[in-house]
């Protein structure tokens, strides 16, 4: 059984077809990339998996369980974390607090013990902090630990967002254009991290990406979408060589 199975997924915005009978599956432990021109339905797919949108039809199974039956805040509890194309961080909070919010689903103590800050609450806080520090070390964010997000440069925010997603210890990580807004060096770092996240943390990664260098560097399999339909599926080399994909990117004449 695949980790994530998408069956005949359909999505429309008014008359616009965002996804048309999309079928695909993501295997445990792979890095699966979705490419496609703007408006191909890539982010829409992520937003359906996060349950921000209700699809018109079809189903998404995660470990055999239909995701569409759950509300959006229950998705991370299943082990699915994500980042956003345009960064959605908690601007008024520090980097550390953002990491700790990533730990939100791991909280154990009840409200009353928080109110009194009982030893159990204190122990849990310390454990969460420990985990948050580990992740900040992993992503080299220590220097920004106590800074507010609003004061950070874009590139750092992007990595903080990745860190926040990692803090929840996901089994499936959805990365929406992790390289957008990053310079060449930062993009190279990102490629290493994506590999490390899979190899060291054992997460399966579903990626939406435009930067073909990054796509080639990290992906096990690539799915090309155009206007909500699957064009090609295969290794990065196969998909880049595909004629239909080239046409979608460059226009009918190519």
């Amino acid at each position, binding site marked *: 059984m695949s980790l994530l199975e998408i069956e005949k997924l359909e999505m429309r915005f008014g008359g616009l077809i965002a996804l048309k009978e999309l079928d695909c599956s993501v295997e445990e432990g792979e890095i699966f990339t979705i490419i496609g021109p703007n408006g191909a339905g890539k982010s829409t797919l992520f*937003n359906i998996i996060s349950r*921000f949108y209700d699809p018109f039809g079809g189903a998404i199974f995660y470990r055999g369980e239909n995701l*569409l039956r759950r509300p959006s805040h229950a998705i991370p509890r299943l082990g699915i974390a994500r980042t*956003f*194309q*345009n960064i*959605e961080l908690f601007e008024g909070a520090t980097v550390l607090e953002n990491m700790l919010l990533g730990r939100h689903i791991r909280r154990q103590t009840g409200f009353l013990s928080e109110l009194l800050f009982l030893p159990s609450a204190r122990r849990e806080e310390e454990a969460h902090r420990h985990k948050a520090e580990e992740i900040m070390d992993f992503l080299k964010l220590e220097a920004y630990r106590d800074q507010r997000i609003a004061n950070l440069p874009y590139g750092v925010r992007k990595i903080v967002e990745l860190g926040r997603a990692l803090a929840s210890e996901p089994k499936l990580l959805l990365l929406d254009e992790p390289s957008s807004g990053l310079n060449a060096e930062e993009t190279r770092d990102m490629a290493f991290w994506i590999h490390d996240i899979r190899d060291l943390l054992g997460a399966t990664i579903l990626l939406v990406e435009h930067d073909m260098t990054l796509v080639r560097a990290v992906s096990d399999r690539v799915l090309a979408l155009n206007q909500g339909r699957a064009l090609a599926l295969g290794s990065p080399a196969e998909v880049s060589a595909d004629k239909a994909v080239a046409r979608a990117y460059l226009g009918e004449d190519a």
Partner: protein
Amino acid sequence: MTSWTDRLFAAIWRGLILFAALGVLAPFLLYATGAMDAMRLGFYIQQLVSGAAIGCVYAMVALGIVLIYKATETINFAQGDLLMVGAFLSFTTIGIFGLPYALGALLAVAAAFLFGILCERAVIRPLVGEPAFSIVMVTIGLGFFLRALVGLTPGWGTDTFTIPTPFTDHTVQLGPAIISQNHAAIILLTMALCGALYLFFAKTKIGVAMQAVSENQLAAHYMGIPVKNLFTLIWGLSAAVAGVAGLLLAPIAFVHSQMGFIVFKALPAAVLGGFASLPGAIVGGLIVGIAEALAGFYLPQGFKDVAAYALLLIVLIVKPEGIFGESGMKKV
């Protein structure tokens, strides 16, 4: 895919509409079947019409609130106090200077327009781009301040006044009901104002630009529309509408420095109409006015005062997007 709660709320909503329609029509049906006499029906119609008239005033205040909300995404809690200032301006031109009603009204509304511009420039402009909460607080503060200012102005003060109008003390016979011309005038003038506003937004360049700003500030800015100046104009327009509302409210309420609290009835009206819809605000105002009349007719004393708020809570829970509103979702 809709959840069962959505379907449940939709069903409740339809039930409520049916119930409301029944409430409005019941006396007519009872009269037709002979269970109610003509005098009682006449009283009911009078209540209904006066409810609609006060509803028109709510509607105009709500209209001003929605105008500002659409443009700047903040609720202007001082809208009622703009109405109060407008009413005092009318009182000044008509009552103190003794100008003819139409001329005095025109001058007062023009002055209200300028006053709105002044308010925007003084306290709102520095906060453009700040969080909504800041601006909401500033408008609350502005309301307090205006009330005190009017109270301290020589000739105005904290007493109550009336404005002589050509309609006062005249009545119209409508079936079994006797309608005050004041009420009729409010309803007719509100309709005229709505028509004028419609023409303004649909046909004039400034009106179209205002709509563009409401839709998308950034896009409007890129199209070369001076967004900030339009905000100022929208405040002026909104204050002018409040001025008209104050002028119309004056003969049925009294002119005094506390009359701005009508804003607390206009806000439910604006929400009922979806908060971002101008026609919605009008209909919302009428609904609130009529609902109050119905509560006064059917229910014991006291319910009339809370009808607007009860209605607001029901609509917020059952159909939070308002009667005409649609829900939106941020794109991520």
